[in-house]
């Protein structure tokens, strides 16, 4: 297209959060001509909100700690549908990736020995034969994500990474051979549209918690990468798996870290009972997040919720003492005061399970290479497309992510994607060019918005979408109501395609961005709904009232949603780690 500006790089990373910046850093360090495209200034990315820490067996709290124990916990936490080769990679490379962060300057909290401070988190044990609570989550007070994100931005500044800051990626550009050859993006400040050409495109666009009405996620978490990949026709894996975090602040949805419970806080119901002792006699409040969230909802449903509406429970922290709270959880004290009008030093914090994390995403291998399936159900790489972080599904979290594993996922697989791309490029990886028609296809949504004269406002449709997901695809699900939800989604989809943009200006037009984001929210929501209806069992975060048991015979599998025919297929879980024995599925109890 002669009238559209083209910028050319060897590799582009879409997303300036933890995963994107770690990938960009790796690429820049190894001399690849790379750019990081990010819709917000990098330090405004959602990684900044991560609180508790980054789980990794660096053997600081326990000198005998072993990454294999971490691997065991992760596989068990995933309810056995995490790919064990990927978990093995994450847990074994993890320490190196964390030490690198420390060397970059991340201000971790410290032990008396001067090592990185590690706190207990949910689902942590000392291996398959010792269920003793471990302390494996490396922390910078309760601002680990903030510290990590800023450190990565700083490291990128030091290396001179190119940032296209406040640029919004609209759609992937695919050539005739179905290779991904870059992206069409819009510079928010000027409204200028450009084709950003690259041999490798990394989707590090994070999660999409905003498909739910109540979420801990930032307003920017709209699943842009997932939307782009789905529109390009690529499949999504395990999209029914959404984590509800046990402790979102009641009413506001903002997160209070699992670290609160790691430091000794616990949940109580309206009778003042520490109810998790009943549901998870061993791990209690530090059971897997899915387990705790479900227990909370049961307490509320059975009438033991707190407050006038009996619709939440309480997180008790005051017994930890002011000093510990100020030292270990200063940010939580701030957030509680602001959003719950409660001082944790004196009173318990009202909390409720809140949508937190998307375990599913773009299927990739350990090197971040995006995958699809051929007609025989065999994995095929999508040439030119990579993914890492929450947008990707490697899969290390399976059906339920352990606390502190998301930050590790970001840095390990951001780094891995960088390494892998550098290697591919060094080996002479080439793709064909894109035709004008290929680029035009990626601009279709912009054209539609520019020409839509009639239609609905974005905000109303978005709200209905979020309410629908909250109502029909929440902590507990069942077939009948999900069918209703899916039907409703079909209607909402029609409305999404008929939204109208009343602001057609160019300079910093946030209305246009929100309209484009709505498309992505819908893509994600729809993939979630279809996959959730299809998985007829309860596993991890996917809990069905009509199929209450885990069904290993049929569903010890990844689900794979194909957008073109809206079909859900299956993909084998990897049970072949390279250096350790397979962890066999057993009953998961805490």
């Amino acid at each position: 297209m002669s009238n559209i500006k083209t910028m050319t790089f060897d590799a582009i990373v879409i997303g300036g959060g933890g995963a994107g910046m770690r990938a960009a850093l790796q690429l820049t360090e190894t001399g690849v001509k790379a750019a990081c495209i990010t819709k917000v200034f990098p330090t405004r990315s959602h990684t900044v909100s991560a609180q508790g820490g980054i789980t990794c067996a660096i053997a600081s709290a326990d000198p005998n700690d072993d990454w294999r124990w971490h691997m065991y916990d992760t596989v068990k936490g995933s309810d056995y549908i995490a790919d064990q080769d990927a978990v093995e990679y994450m847990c074994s490379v993890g320490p190196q990736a964390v030490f690198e962060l420390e060397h970059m300057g991340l201000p971790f909290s410290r032990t008396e020995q001067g090592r990185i401070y590690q706190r207990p988190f949910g689902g942590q044990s000392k291996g398959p034969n010792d269920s003793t609570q471990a302390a494996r989550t490396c922390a910078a007070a309760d601002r680990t994500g903030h510290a990590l994100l800023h450190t990565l931005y700083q490291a990128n500044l030091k290396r001179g990474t190119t940032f296209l800051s406040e640029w919004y990626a609209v759609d992937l550009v695919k050539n005739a051979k179905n290779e991904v050859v870059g992206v069409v993006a819009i510079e928010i400040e000027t409204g200028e549209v450009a084709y950003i050409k690259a041999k490798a495109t990394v989707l590090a666009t994070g999660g999409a918690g905003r498909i739910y009405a109540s979420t801990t996620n930032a307003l920017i978490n709209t699943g842009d990468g997932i939307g782009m990949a789905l529109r390009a026709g690529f499949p999504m894996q395990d999209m029914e798996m959404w984590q509800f975090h046990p402790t979102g602040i009641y009413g506001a949805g903002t997160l209070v870290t699992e670290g609160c419970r790691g430091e000794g806080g616990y949940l109580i119901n309206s009778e003042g009972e520490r109810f998790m002792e009943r549901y998870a006699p061993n791990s209690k409040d530090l059971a897997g997040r899915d387990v705790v969230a479900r227990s909370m909802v049961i307490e509320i449903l059975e009438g033991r919720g707190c407050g006038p509406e009996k619709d939440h429970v309480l997180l008790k922290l005051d017994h930890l003492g002011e000093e510990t709270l100020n030292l270990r959880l200063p940010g939580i004290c701030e957030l509680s005061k602001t959003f719950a009008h409660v001082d944790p030093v004196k009173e318990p914090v009202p909390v409720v399970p809140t949508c937190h994390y998307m375990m599913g995403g773009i299927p990739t291998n350990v090197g971040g290479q995006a995958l699809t399936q051929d007609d025989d159900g065999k994995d095929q790489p999508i040439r030119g497309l990579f993914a890492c972080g929450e947008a990707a599904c490697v899969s290390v979290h399976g059906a339920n992510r352990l606390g502190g594993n998301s930050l590790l996922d970001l840095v390990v697989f951001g780094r891995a994607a960088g390494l892998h791309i550098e290697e591919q490029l060094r080996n002479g990886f080439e793709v064909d060019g894109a035709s004008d028609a290929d680029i035009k296809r990626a601009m279709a949504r912009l054209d539609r918005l520019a020409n839509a004269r009639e239609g609905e406002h974005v905000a109303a449709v978005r709200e209905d979408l979020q309410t629908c997901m909250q109502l029909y695809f929440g902590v507990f699900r069942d077939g009948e109501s999900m069918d209703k939800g899916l039907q409703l989604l079909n209607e909402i989809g029609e409305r999404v395609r008929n939204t109208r943009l009343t602001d057609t200006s160019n300079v910093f037009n946030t209305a246009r961005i929100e309209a484009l984001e709505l498309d992505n929210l819908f893509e994600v929501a729809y993939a979630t709904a279809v996959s959730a209806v299809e998985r007829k069992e309860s596993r991890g975060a996917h809990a069905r009232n009509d199929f209450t048991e885990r069904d290993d015979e049929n569903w010890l599998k990844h689900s794979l949603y194909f957008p073109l025919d809206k079909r859900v297929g299956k993909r084998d879980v990897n049970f072949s780690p390279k250096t350790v024995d397979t962890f066999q599925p057993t009953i998961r109890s805490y």
Partner: protein
Amino acid sequence: MLVSLYRYNPEADNAPFMQDVEVELPKGKDLMVLDVLNLLKEKDVTLSYRRSCREGVCGSDGMNMNGKNGLACITPVSQVIKKDKLVLRPLPGLPVIRDLVVDMSLFYKQYEKVMPYLVNDQPAPAIERLQTPEDREKLDGLYECILCACCSSACPSFWWNPDKFIGPAGLLQAYRFLADSRDTAQAERLAELDDPFSVFRCRGIMNCVSVCPKGLNPTRAIGHIRNLLLQRAT
């Protein structure tokens, strides 16, 4: 409640103007200023502002609310409202791109000037570099900065010399690295700061301290830098 908004769209307006809008607030609930903006945007999509985390950690929605800088997402309306009126203006001293969105490039440039990254010329160990809890504690009150620019854009010295005075946010980060026991570039860092503008334009008026949404104290950090510069000079 009456909301008075600073509006400017370069494609339509020759100059910025104040727009008064009446907003119906839900009863019994103290909204954050960002919630009010979101309500307004539902009615008028052309209203532009930045936002992301909506919990005070990403630093996107710094703005001037009834005369005082702060983050819209963690500022309850009740805290800033005067005579039933809420006046929202963009951060002072930075060029306005549109409505409440300012051009932050000068602010970021000042941040970049202070070498905001750890420098250590020793070979990296196989594990982490050790740091005592006491040394780590020196970074508290420094590393938490979210780069929202509330402080620098409340600082008259930064208004008058945004290109030369590093400003409170940048200087806080300058000291964050000067104070890090793992950093080995102290001499180099100080040499870069020893001019009449970068640090010494601070007049100690503490506007930065009074607006910082994270409760940080750039004035004190600047004092520490000055002491280091003095030690170096004498």
